[in-house]
C-alpha cells in the first residue's frame, strides 16, 4: 500500500470518526433538558449552585438539612453543586439561556451581572417574599441597604455574609517593635519599613487572586478622593486616568517596589497569603471579616486569636475620605430563582432566614446579614464582637474597587494588578486598561 493511499484511507477514517462523533453529539443534544417548570413551581430538589471556594455557606446548609430544616429537607431534598468562582458567571448565563436556573444559586462577583438577572425578572423580590413569609424582620436593615446599593436598587439577594473590610494585624509584632496602630498611610509605610528591616513581611496579599491587592487601591482612593470617588467613575464624571486615581495606583505600585508585599506575590494564592499572617510571618493582612472563620480557628491561627487586631484602612493626609468609612459587602451573595420559588422552596427560605444567622456565627464564625440575638453575640470571641460593634456603629460605608465595574473591567483589574505591584505595568497603563474597558461598556 502506498503512503498516499494510506493517507487517503486515514483521512476517510478520520471523516468517519468525525461523523460518528457528530451523530453522538446530536443524539445527546436531542435528549437534552426538558421544559422548564412554570412560574413559581417547586423543583424536585433544592439544588444550590455555589462557588467551590465558598467554605462558609454549604456546611451550614448541610447542618440545617439534617437539623432545624429536616422537615423542609424531607419535602425538598437539598443538593449542593459547586463550580469555580471564575466560571460561575458564564455558567449562570448558559443556564439562563436554557431557562434552567437552579432553585438557589450564588451569583458572580460582579454586581452588574446580578442586577441584569434582576432586571430580566429571574430573581425573587425578597422585600415582598420575606414579608409574606413573616420573616422580613430577621434581616439586618443595613444588609438590605447594602444589597440594594449594589444590585440595582432591589432586595434580590440574601445576605448569607455581611462583611466589612479592614486590616487584620499581629498585635504581638506591633508591640515587639513599638508600633502603634497606623492612622495614616504614611504611618503604615513607616511601620512597613520597620517590619521589612526586621525580616517580617509587612503586608501579605494574594496576587494570584488579584482582588486582595485592588482592595488596597480602592482603600487609598476612598481615603484620598472621598467615598464617592468610584461612583463618579461609574457615572462618567471622572476617569480612572485622572491624576488622583493614577496617584493612588502609584502608591500601591510603590508598596510592591519597596518590598512591603510578599515575594513572588503574583503566584501567591489566597490560602497561602492568609497563612503567612496566621503563621506569624506577616504583620498585616487586608481582608474582609469573613476571615474571622480562620482567625478564630486555633488550628489555622498559630499566633493566637488574642494577638490579632482589626483596624480600618488608614487615612491619606489631606484626603477627602474618613477612616471610619469601612468597605462593606455581602460576600458572593446567593439568591433564589423566581421560576422555582414554589411553596416548598418558600418553606426552605423561611427556615434559612430564621436560623442561618446564628448557625453561621456559632459554627463558622461568619457574620451574616441575618439577625442574631444579643445573648449569642455576647458568647462570641472578642475579635468577632469588636467587628460587630464596628459594623453596628458605622454610619457610612463604601464599596470596593470593582463593585461598579462591568465584567471585563472587573476581571482585567484583578488579573493585571499583580503586574502593577511587580513593576511589569505602570500605574498609567493599568488605569488606562481599565478605563478602556469601562468606556467599551
Amino acid at each position, binding site marked *: 500500500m502506498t503512503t498516499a493511499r494510506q493517507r487517503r484511507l486515514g483521512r476517510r477514517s478520520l471523516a468517519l470518526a468525525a461523523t460518528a462523533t457528530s*451523530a453522538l453529539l446530536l443524539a445527546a443534544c436531542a435528549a437534552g433538558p426538558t421544559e422548564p417548570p412554570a412560574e413559581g413551581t417547586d423543583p424536585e430538589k433544592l439544588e444550590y449552585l455555589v462557588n467551590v471556594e465558598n467554605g462558609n455557606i454549604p456546611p451550614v446548609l448541610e447542618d440545617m438539612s439534617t437539623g432545624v430544616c429536616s422537615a423542609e429537607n424531607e419535602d425538598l431534598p437539598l443538593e449542593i453543586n459547586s463550580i469555580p468562582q471564575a466560571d460561575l458567571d458564564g455558567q449562570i448565563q448558559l443556564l439562563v439561556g436554557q431557562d434552567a436556573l437552579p432553585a438557589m444559586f450564588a451569583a458572580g462577583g460582579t454586581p452588574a451581572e446580578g442586577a441584569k438577572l434582576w432586571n430580566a425578572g429571574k430573581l425573587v423580590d425578597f422585600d415582598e417574599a420575606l414579608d409574606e413569609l413573616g420573616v422580613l424582620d430577621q434581616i439586618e436593615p443595613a444588609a438590605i441597604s447594602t444589597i440594594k446599593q449594589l444590585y440595582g436598587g432591589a432586595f434580590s439577594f440574601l445576605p448569607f455574609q455581611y462583611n466589612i473590610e479592614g486590616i487584620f494585624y499581629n498585635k504581638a509584632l506591633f508591640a515587639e517593635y513599638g508600633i502603634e496602630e497606623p492612622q495614616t498611610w504614611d504611618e503604615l509605610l513607616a511601620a512597613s519599613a520597620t517590619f521589612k528591616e526586621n525580616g517580617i513581611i509587612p503586608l501579605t496579599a494574594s496576587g494570584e487572586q488579584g482582588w486582595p491587592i485592588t482592595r488596597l487601591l480602592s482603600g487609598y482612593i476612598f481615603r484620598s478622593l472621598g467615598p464617592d470617588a468610584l461612583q463618579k467613575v461609574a457615572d462618567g464624571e471622572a476617569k480612572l486616568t485622572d491624576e488622583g486615581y493614577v496617584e493612588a495606583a502609584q502608591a500601591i505600585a510603590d508598596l510592591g517596589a519597596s518590598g512591603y508585599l510578599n515575594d513572588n506575590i503574583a503566584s501567591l494564592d489566597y490560602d497561602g497569603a492568609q497563612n503567612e499572617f496566621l503563621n506569624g510571618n506577616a504583620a498585616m493582612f487586608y481582608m474582609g471579616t469573613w476571615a474571622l472563620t480562620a482567625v478564630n480557628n486555633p488550628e489555622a491561627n498559630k499566633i493566637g486569636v488574642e494577638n490579632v487586631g482589626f483596624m480600618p484602612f488608614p487615612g491619606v493626609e489631606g484626603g477627602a475620605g474618613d477612616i471610619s468609612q469601612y468597605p462593606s459587602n455581602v460576600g458572593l451573595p446567593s439568591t433564589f430563582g423566581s421560576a422555582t420559588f414554589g411553596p416548598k422552596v418558600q418553606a426552605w427560605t423561611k427556615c434559612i432566614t430564621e436560623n442561618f444567622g446564628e448557625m453561621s456565627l456559632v459554627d463558622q464564625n461568619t457574620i451574616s446579614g441575618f439577625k442574631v440575638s444579643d445573648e449569642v453575640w455576647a458568647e462570641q470571641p472578642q475579635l468577632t464582637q469588636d467587628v460587630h460593634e464596628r459594623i453596628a456603629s458605622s454610619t457610612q460605608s463604601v464599596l470596593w474597587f470593582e463593585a461598579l465595574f462591568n465584567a471585563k473591567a472587573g476581571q482585567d483589574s484583578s488579573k493585571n494588578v499583580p503586574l502593577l505591584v511587580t513593576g511589569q505595568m505602570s500605574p498609567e497603563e493599568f488605569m488606562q486598561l481599565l478605563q*478602556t474597558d469601562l468606556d467599551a461598556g
Partner: protein
Amino acid sequence: MKSVLGDRRAIAILLGPALAVYTLVMVVPVFWSFGYTFVKGNPLEGFRFAGIDNFVRLFSDPDIGAALGFTIKYALIMTIGQVAVGYALSLFYIFVLRRFTSALIRTLVFFPVVVPTVAIALLYQKIFQSAPRDGIVNELLVNVGLGSVDWLGQSDTAFIVIIIMDLWRSVGFYAVLLFAGLLDIPDDIIESARIDGARHWSLFRHIILPLSLPILLAATIFSINGTIKVFDSVLALTGGGPGNSTTPLTMYMWRTAFAFSDYGYGSTIALLLTIMCFLVTLFIFRSARRDNTV
C-alpha cells in the same frame, strides 16, 4: 460501482446523512454565529442590532492584538518545537537505540500524551511553583546560588513554562508519527548509500531528510492545526495570565461571550478565528496537493 455512483438517488442516500449532520453541527452554527456579529447583548438582556460596531471594535481593541500575537507566537514556536524535537527523537529511536530500549523509551515519551491536560498543568504548577513555597525548579536554582524566579507570575517566564509543558505533553505523539514515517524508508536505499560511502551527516542530509519530507510536512500540518486552537493547557496552567499576557484568541473569545456576556463581540472574535483557520486550511490543501505528486 460505476452504476451505483451514477445513480443520483444512491448518491443522495450515501451523502445525505453525513451532509445533514455536517450542515447541522458546522454550517448552521457558523452562519448563526456570523449573525451574532451584528448584534450586542446576551440571552439575559436580549439582543439589539449594532451594525458594524463589533468589527470597528475588533480593530481598535488592544486585547485582540495581544491575543493574536500570543496565538501566532505560540503556534509557530510549538510547531517548530514539536516537529524538530519529534524528528530528533524519531531518529534517535531508529538509529541509536536498540529494538527493546527503543520500544521502552517510545512508550515512556508517549505516556504524557494520554495523561489529561489538567493533571499535567497541576503537575507543572507544582514544579514551577514560587509561592508560598518554592517548587523543584526554584529549589534547584536556589541551591546553586541563583535566586528564586516567579515563573508563572511574569509574562515571559510564564510563556516559557507553557511551551515546555506543551512540548513535553505532545512531543511523544510527533515522535511516533515521524518514527512511522522513517520506517517507510526502504532499508536497501540506506544500505546502498552506506556502500557508496555515506556516513552519519551525509546519510542524513542526502538520504534520510529528503525521503522523510512528506511525513515532516504532514506532522507540521497536524501541529499547526492543533496549536492554533490552543485553549485547555493555557487555561489550566496560567488561566491566561499574568494579566492577559498568555491569553490566546480562543480564550478571549470564550471569556468575551460567556464571562463578559457579550455574545456579539465574542462571535466577531470567533469569525476572526474562523478566517485564521480558513487560511491554515487553504495552506494545508495546497501542501497536500503538492505532497501527492511527490
